[in-house]
């Protein structure tokens, strides 16, 4: 189980599990595993909704660097 799953993939996988559960395609035997996975996916998605990781200073530095390169070139 990868911890680095992107939220888009997490969202799609979650939709898949929900539709399987809704269609009654999941047996009681698989249920625990699926619910555990779904909980992880939901956590990834919810975290994404309420937090971003971008850093203004880092972006501005990168922008400056690219513009300096261009001016020198």
């Amino acid at each position, binding site marked *: 189980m990868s911890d680095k799953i992107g939220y888009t993939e997490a969202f799609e996988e979650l939709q898949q*599990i929900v539709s399987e*559960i809704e269609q009654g395609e999941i047996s009681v035997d698989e249920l625990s595993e699926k619910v555990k996975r779904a909980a992880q996916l939901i956590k990834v998605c919810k975290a994404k909704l309420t937090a971003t990781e971008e850093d*203004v200073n880092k*972006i501005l530095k*990168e922008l400056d660097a690219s513009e300096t390169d261009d001016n020198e070139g």
Partner: protein
Amino acid sequence: MPEKTNDKTIFSLLEVTQSIQKTLSERYKSAFWVKAEMNKLNFYGQSGHCYPELVEKQDGKVIAQIKSHLWKDDYIRANNNFKVVLKEPLKDGIKILFLAKVSFDPGHGLALWILDIDPSYTLGDLEREKQEAISRLQEEGIFNRNKTVKLPLLPQRIAIISVETSKGYVDFLKVIETNSWNYAFFHLLFPSLLQGDKAVEAICHQLRRIKRIKSHFDVVAIIRGGGGDIGLSCYNNYQLAKEIALFPIPVITGIGHATNETVTEMVSFSNAITPTKLAEFLLQHFHNFSIPLQDGERIIIDTSHQLIRDAKSKLHSELKLFRSVTENILTANRNEVRELLKSVFHHTRSQISQFKLLVLQWKDKLFAHASLQCKQTQMELKNIDKNIINMSPQVVLKRGYSITRLNGEAIKDTHTIRSGDTVSTTLFEGNIISVVQSTNQSAKE
């Protein structure tokens, strides 16, 4: 009056220019309509007058030009008409149709005196330019290009092209930053002019900057608002529209209440019209993500509980069924065993009584047989006894038989007997000792 020197008549410059002025004013008495390109408006803020540069071009070359003046009051009226009809002020580089008189002033020279400008002519011209930009983008196959770029599920990181002081920018930030769902956005402002001719280059410049660091952004938002509806024709500019159409990440626009959609808005990924609507567009994407997420969570919880409940109740009913079936089987078997036991008892008892009877019968028969046998045997024994008695030597001797012995041995034939042998003969009563005279071998009679 002209001076006369020798044979020459000499005019002063004023006399000549006044003569030209007189001739021209007689020749050009009435005003007439002229179409031309207004290269520069040349508005002077202090006086309020304008001195437009008028040119006519053919294949990009100026083939005619003339100075002109537009007095303050005429300028204010014409400019207001423009704002109403075109949503644009009078500005450099537009084609105009104007009412003018030829004006010649000895001090300022020849010029056209602009009395009025017809905004509908310029409107048509701007519209034609807009249509040209559209068809050019369509011909190049890039008109819908930005619409085909993938917008992430959560357009969270926004590069904003706007100005800090714009009311639209403030409105936009207010909506995304105070959203009650705690959706997180990251945004960075790339300041730019947003209207007028210089806006094209300014916006393009910021777009190029954003392109360098595009990996940090999900979407570009061009936000304008609060600046009125004048000066938006820059958004019909081909270069700007092309930059947006070809932009590698989605560009969304909220540039305000333009009467007609501009080319920039047409080619952008999505046109939200107002900055607030644009913010709502982004929030809507978050909802589109968040609501299925919550629904999914609820469905998973509910359905799992239901599934477990169902399984439990199924197990219970199976258990009940199992218990009842096994109890039935046990009862049936127990009854059968009991019946079998009963019948085994019954059968053995009757078998035993039968055997007892048989044994008794056999006992009687045995006794009967045995006593009969005994009697017979007794009889036989008696007979034998009788015979034995009959056969005893005493009895035989009594009947007159005798035994002759030689040397104690009973003589059965004559072979062992020689004349002269002394033999002893035993009778029933008494013995005879005799000497053998002769023997003869007589055959048995």
